[in-house]
């Protein structure tokens, strides 16, 4: 009976109240807003659950595929409950997000993280249909080496790692920049990974009701 008592005690102890839901303060604005006359138009986009995994096509040159696979892992790891999944596809015509090198292709060398040099750039473009509330095609992301930058190839690669994650954040629906340089979604990203505020923001985004739909599959 000793064992039975221990078991009953364990049951009683375990049946305590539920833990409190954590506070998620610090979310930054991620939706675009436009005031047209008296109306405020909110552009809130995220990939819906029925469109997962998000299909990324990576420019086959240099180490773009590595950068995108790494970015997918980084963003997936921000979620606790499977809200986002991504995959790299080999056919650009079936991709949701197309990532390519603009201008020059940087060599695939080990990153030099000794300096947070601003050596590269990125641009994410959404194309809308005539309603403005549905994407007309895949999201395009371009990465480029800044012309005239004195950065070494290693510094360019370190920059590309940051900017690839940053631009992929845009392609996932974080449409605006954070005002804080500790966040990967800061205008000129200085950090290597998303911060807790990036995580909270993308979590909130993926539980929010979008106003913009993805392109037809």
């Amino acid at each position, binding site marked *: 009976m000793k064992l039975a008592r221990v078991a009953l005690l*364990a049951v009683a102890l375990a049946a305590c109240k539920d833990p409190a839901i954590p506070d998620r303060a610090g979310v930054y604005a991620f939706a675009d807003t436009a005031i047209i006359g008296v109306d405020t138009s909110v552009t809130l986009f995220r990939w819906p659950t029925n469109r997962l995994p998000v299909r990324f096509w990576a420019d086959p040159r240099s180490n773009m595929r590595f950068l995108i696979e790494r970015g997918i892992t980084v963003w997936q790891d921000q979620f606790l409950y499977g809200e986002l999944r991504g995959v790299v596809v080999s056919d650009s015509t079936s991709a949701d997000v197309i990532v390519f090198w603009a201008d020059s292709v940087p060599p695939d060398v080990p990153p030099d993280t000794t300096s947070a040099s601003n050596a590269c750039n990125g641009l994410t473009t959404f194309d809308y249909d005539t309603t403005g509330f549905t994407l007309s095609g895949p999201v395009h992301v371009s990465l480029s080496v800044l012309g005239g930058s004195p950065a070494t190839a290693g510094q360019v690669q370190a920059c590309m790692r940051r900017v690839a994650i940053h631009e992929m954040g845009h392609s996932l629906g974080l449409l605006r920049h954070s005002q804080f340089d500790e966040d990967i979604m800061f205008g000129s990203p200085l950090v290597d990974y998303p911060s807790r505020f990036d995580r909270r923001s993308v979590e909130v985004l993926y539980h929010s009701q979008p106003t913009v739909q993805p392109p037809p599959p």
Partner: protein
Amino acid sequence: MRADGRLGGWAVRATLIGLGITAHPPSRLAAQVSFHVAVGARYSSTLVHDSVVTAFDLRPALAPAFLVSVRDELRPGWSADVTLDVAPSGLRRHESSGSFDAGSFTTVAFTVGLRREFVPGVSARAGVGGLRYLADQTGVFREGSGGIFPLGSLAATYAVPLPFAQKHQLEVEARYDIHQFITPALRTEGFNASRPVHRVAVLIRMGWGKS
């Protein structure tokens, strides 16, 4: 299995004594050991209740359960057992808008229990042990599974009174267990306490050896 049908009896007895569950007077060393396997289905309560914009639950899907036990009769009507319980399961996020895939995991639980037969064919079991979640390092398990959680279990067993069933020691068992769940990733997220997880399984059990 040994020729006399006493499958690993000394090992079982040593485990039970080592765990301090019960004391065996020398006169009980001839107790009977039997081997049991069970399969069934298990329901689990919510692992995580959270709210991001809207409230939602993370809950295992209804899943199969596989149990292996070695049971040692201590005296008429009483037996002790050690049980390994393995249950692979999908993980679902339940929101107001629907239910969505959130990964998968397998639980492995080890318990020691004491069983008493109250009336012929009907017995109850109480047990304690530990449970571990095995999963890829994603989602709530991205920083690890949280180690081994203490587990308490209760079960009621009914031996089917049919000749075929008695020959194969067929039993129907309803099993309940409870443990506290939290993972390092949930702590990082801001959860500061674990949550009780209740599991209920209905099992068909088959046995070999002396019962």
